[in-house]
């Protein structure tokens, strides 16, 4: 690089050109990295949906499993999932919202609150299969409930989703403006009256968003249900709390072992599409509720 270059500015231009190229190249790589997961998933989904076409029909939704692909159905697993997740909602909502109300409205900022909070964060990171062992050891081993029944499945998945329900409910409760609380207390309301008539109604949409997302996760949970001894294939839907059951992901797991092409490229895609439609619809409802809620707030 000569002095002349500096004076004429060509050296600087070259340098700038090089940096521009680097900048541009990096930007392309980063965009690709951002989109690669989404694009791969979209391609895979396109495949499953195409393969499910022709297999996903009324017969599939209303029959029991079979070793003949044309006769195989998903009905007992669908009902099993629905039954269990309804119970999970029934247990997890009051427990989760209750804990969130305690942490946000009652507990002082002391070590007990920190301890509870850290504990909840840690529970959210425990692998789901460990919850299966908890269910097996606690509900089956210690409490003596039978193996693989609806109630044990629901209890186990409730404990599994509880941390997420608590944390998202806490966020919803925290978003309620303090002015509204003070207004209620100023009118002479007791704390419980204030929570019941101001905090919970205001936080309700946020609580529901978090809860629906947790329930969608619960529907996809497989490993904990395997560990508590739920059936991977069953021929009748559950008929009570202590009846054995299967669930959609368990049936998918069972069918993934069938080497026949009609199962791998027909029955399985159909089962997966049903499961994904349920989960994606629930997530969609949750996101819609959240957006609508935030629009109303503004």
């Amino acid at each position, binding site marked *: 690089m000569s002095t002349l270059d500096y004076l004429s500015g060509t050296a600087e231009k070259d340098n700038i050109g090089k*940096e521009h190229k680097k900048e541009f190249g990096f930007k392309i*790589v980063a965009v690709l990295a*951002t989109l690669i997961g989404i694009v791969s998933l979209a391609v895979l989904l396109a495949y499953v949906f195409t393969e499910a076409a022709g297999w996903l029909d009324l017969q599939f939704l209303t029959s029991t499993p079979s070793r003949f692909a044309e006769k195989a159905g998903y009905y007992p697993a669908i009902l099993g999932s629905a039954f269990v997740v309804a119970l999970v909602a029934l247990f997890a909502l009051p427990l989760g919202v209750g*804990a969130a109300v305690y942490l946000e409205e009652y507990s002082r900022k002391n070590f007990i609150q920190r301890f509870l909070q850290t504990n909840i964060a840690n529970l959210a990171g425990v692998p789901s299969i460990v919850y299966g*062992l908890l269910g097996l050891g606690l509900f089956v081993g210690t409490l003596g409930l039978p193996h693989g029944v609806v109630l044990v499945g629901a209890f186990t998945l409730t404990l599994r989703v509880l941390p997420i329900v608590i944390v998202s409910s806490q966020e919803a409760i925290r978003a309620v403006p303090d002015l509204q609380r003070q207004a209620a207390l100023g009118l002479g309301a007791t704390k419980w009256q204030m929570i019941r008539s101001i905090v919970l109604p205001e936080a309700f949409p946020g609580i529901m968003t978090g809860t629906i997302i947790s329930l969608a996760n619960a529907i996809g949970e*497989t*490993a904990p249900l395997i560990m508590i001894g739920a059936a991977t294939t069953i021929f009748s839907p559950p008929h009570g709390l202590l009846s054995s059951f299967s669930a959609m992901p368990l049936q998918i*797991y069972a069918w*993934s072992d069938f080497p026949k092409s009609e199962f791998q490229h027909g029955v399985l895609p159909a089962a997966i599409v049903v499961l994904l439609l349920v989960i994606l619809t629930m997530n969609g409802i949750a996101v819609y509720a959240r957006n609508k809620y935030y629009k109303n707030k503004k």
Partner: protein
Amino acid sequence: MATPKSLHKEFRADLKENSVRGVFFATALVSIITTVGIVVVLFADSVDFFSQVSIVEFFTSTRWSPVIKPIEFGVLPIISGTLTFTFLTALVAIPIGVLAAIYLSEYASERFRRIVKPALEVLAGIPTVVYGYFALIYVTPLLKKIFPEISTFNVLSASIMVGIMIIPTIASLSEDAMRAVPNSLRQAGYGLGITKFQVTSTVVVPASLSGIISSFILGISRAIGETMAVTIAAGNLSRIVNWLNPKEAFLQPVQTMTSAMVEVGTSDVTGTSVAYKSLFAVGLTLFVMTMLLNLVSQRIKNKYREKYE
């Protein structure tokens, strides 16, 4: 003046307020009971297990065969399977996750973020059985075109799918850390005449490193506990994986701790057998590993967080 009647009423109101508080406290206790339950259940049955199988055998034997004779309970093969799977998964998820975080935090328009972020979250919401199916039915045949010697069940395809599943975990936590870096630091960089890429690599990433690393650890802990994708796609063959021979290590079946637990859980073992109890010993090992990683992740995030006010 407080009449006895109004005092009575006040007392009743107080009682109600206190019992409501008590009920809320009780619901908050459920999470403590859950933790205690996990620890007690895992320990109790593990103690039982170690009274029948020596702890030395458990941690030094190189064969894991809990159901098929000759029975042996060496946890090393399935730990090596877990490490192999986790390593490959991290290799997929970490670079992609960080690049995505950089793009979303530093480059993307608000509109792009609004559309892409929820789409990324969908990746984390798909059940792992479905990822297992994708790996077995679509990814493995694709890999066969690149590596003709690949086995139908192999750890690589499961790792690729789970890696994609973990991208949002790493991307969103790293992005949060990067967005917390104040703009004044970036402006200082631009003031010195450096480009956006230089600002990102020399200012933003170093300033948010603790958050980024804690997202890696959390992602790794996720991979260690992942069960169904490995069970379906990686083949359940317990062996000590030799990384010095990558083809054999990554293109052949492996068994992880989690898939070994599913195998025992779905076999016909009874509640009194040693195999049944081995579930809890493996579960305890898994629990301790993930718990340590989660604690380290939180510690790094809290301790080394640069504070900008």
